[in-house]
């Protein structure tokens, strides 16, 4: 198949690292029947049940994940866009890395990738700083109606991305938006979907959707900290601000890094929000982000080789980042667990 998807060693692997135990099972499979033949048939029944319970999921995994990923790799190497228009290439021939070279040499693809990196440079610091600040404030014990505040902050995450984009698009549209209307009455005309403002406007949509969700994740990590450590620093005379920044924050470092890296991955895949905004502003073209590029190449231009190669490039970026997350979190949480 050659899916090229080496699974990043999962975060949960350490405790039961690949146990190829043949027959004498310790722990979980201790059975009443002592006879060795009975044990073997029990083992067979277990494996049968395990197979039955896993088959539906792995059938899906094969059909809607492995086969498509394999097809994408195959298309990227074999589909020749110069002959194959319309319904797949009639005579698929090996074109090697030509599609990859075409994608990487295409300024609209690299510009999209660069745009997403710029997006991340604005978005991720804002997201991390905002959610960390909120989580620390919620954890400080000084917030009134904390459960309600949490609910309110989390609410945007239940709004589908497309509808979040609709809401904000209308709040950015003069003549509909009450905010812009007020500003205009004060003599301040702002174009929130202009050349320089469209990217920050888009950042705002995504930030609004995800701020509360990430706050809850960091808050959960803060709640899991041993209270003695925090109380000890209070006894030492550290004020609440110093406790938050110098005692609590370093201890949830791995959660903060995980939040940042996951946000990076999902930003690279950004599609829905810019797709909707592109209906109303010419500042977002049909190849604004890598995902939009793939969609445009596959379904507007029918360049299957180009779309597949761009998909594999995006997939490679994602896998590299996931791998980085796993390495980082394993390293960051390792020493803490030993303590």
């Amino acid at each position, binding site marked *: 198949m050659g899916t090229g998807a080496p699974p990043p060693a999962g975060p949960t692997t350490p405790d039961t690292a690949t146990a190829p135990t043949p027959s004498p099972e310790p722990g979980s499979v201790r059975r009443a029947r002592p006879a060795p033949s009975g044990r073997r048939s029990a083992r067979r029944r277990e494996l049968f049940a*395990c197979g039955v319970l896993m088959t539906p999921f792995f059938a899906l995994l094969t059909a809607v994940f492995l086969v498509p990923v394999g097809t994408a790799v195959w298309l990227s190497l074999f589909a020749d866009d110069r002959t194959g228009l319309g319904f797949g290439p009639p005579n698929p021939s090996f074109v090697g890395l030509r599609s990859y070279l075409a994608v990487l040499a295409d300024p609209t693809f690299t510009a999209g990738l660069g745009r997403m990196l710029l997006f991340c440079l604005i978005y991720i610091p804002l997201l991390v700083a905002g959610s960390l600040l909120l989580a620390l404030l919620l954890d400080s014990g000084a917030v009134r109606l904390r459960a309600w505040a949490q609910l309110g902050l989390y609410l945007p995450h239940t709004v589908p991305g497309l509808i979040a984009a609709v809401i904000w698009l209308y709040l950015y549209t003069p003549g509909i938006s009450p905010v812009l209307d007020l500003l205009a009455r004060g003599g301040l005309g702002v174009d929130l979907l202009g050349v320089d403002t469209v990217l920050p406007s888009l950042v705002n949509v995504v930030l609004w959707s995800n701020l509360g969700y990430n706050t809850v994740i960091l808050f959960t990590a803060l709640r899991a900290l041993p209270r003695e450590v925090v109380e000890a620093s209070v006894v030492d005379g550290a004020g609440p601000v110093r406790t938050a920044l110098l005692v609590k924050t370093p201890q949830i470092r791995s959660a903060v890094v995980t939040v940042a890296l996951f946000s990076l991955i999902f930003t690279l895949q950004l599609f829905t929000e810019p797709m909707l905004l592109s209906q109303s502003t010419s500042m977002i073209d049909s190849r604004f982000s890598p995902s939009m590029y793939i969609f445009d190449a596959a379904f507007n231009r029918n360049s299957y080789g180009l779309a597949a190669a761009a998909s594999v490039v995006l997939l490679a970026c994602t896998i590299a980042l996931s791998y980085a997350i796993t390495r980082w979190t394993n390293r960051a949480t390792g020493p803490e667990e030993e303590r």
Partner: protein
Amino acid sequence: MSASAATRLTGRAATNTVVAVFVLYTLLPVAWLVLAAAKDADALFSSRLLSLEGFTPVSNIGDLFATDGGIYGRWYLNTLVYAVGGAALSALVSTACGYAFSTYRFRHKEKLFGLVLAAVMVPQTVLALPLYLLASSLGVVNTFWAVFIPLLFNPFGVYLGRIFSDGYVPREVLEAARMDGTGELSLYFRVAFGMLLPGAVTVFLFQLTAIWNNFFLPMVMLSDQELYPVTLGLYNWNSAATTSPEYYPVVITGSLLAVLPLIVAFLMLQRFWRSGLTAGAVK
């Protein structure tokens, strides 16, 4: 002494102000959606949202269900079927697989689990073209199944299912049932599944939201408007609104109605969301 009490008081005030500002940031756009959906078109376009005139929620909803021959109702029904049916089936499949990962030992188990985790991160846009080609070679493009089947795949649900099985299903109970002669499969369906039910509800909720939010796959697979989910329908109406503004009010009212079930589900089942978030965050 009183000075430190004063700083503590200003600290509290500052803390609450900052949190309140952020809560306003998250809530006001939703409040705008609610107000805008309740107002008539004149009030909407003149941005007079806070005045007391022009409230026409009932006729707005009437307009919504009358536009384009009442197609919105059809979209809404489709979304319910995709999301509720898909999430229920998906939760059953994922929970069973997660339980098997938690309970049984076999060779290369952790490598297989690593594959499941890797699948969580793969962008949907990467799979779209191959899935489309696959569906078209099977002749199911532009059918219900082309959207429904891929959305059943929920690797994160397997991850949650494994975590929940580790936590909720005591090994001793399974052992005791085995000694009573319960077969391995009825062990799952009769004994373990009951204990896993709260976990399965969490998986169901996460997948429900994911399917409700999805619009990329339907956009790729469907050309027949009758099969659209709400998100794709609203996307098309919003596109139409750029040339014919009479679509703006229906997009707004339609958006609000499309969000409501998710908000209600979230408020009613908060405890399940929280357990999912915790399991996802602690890892």
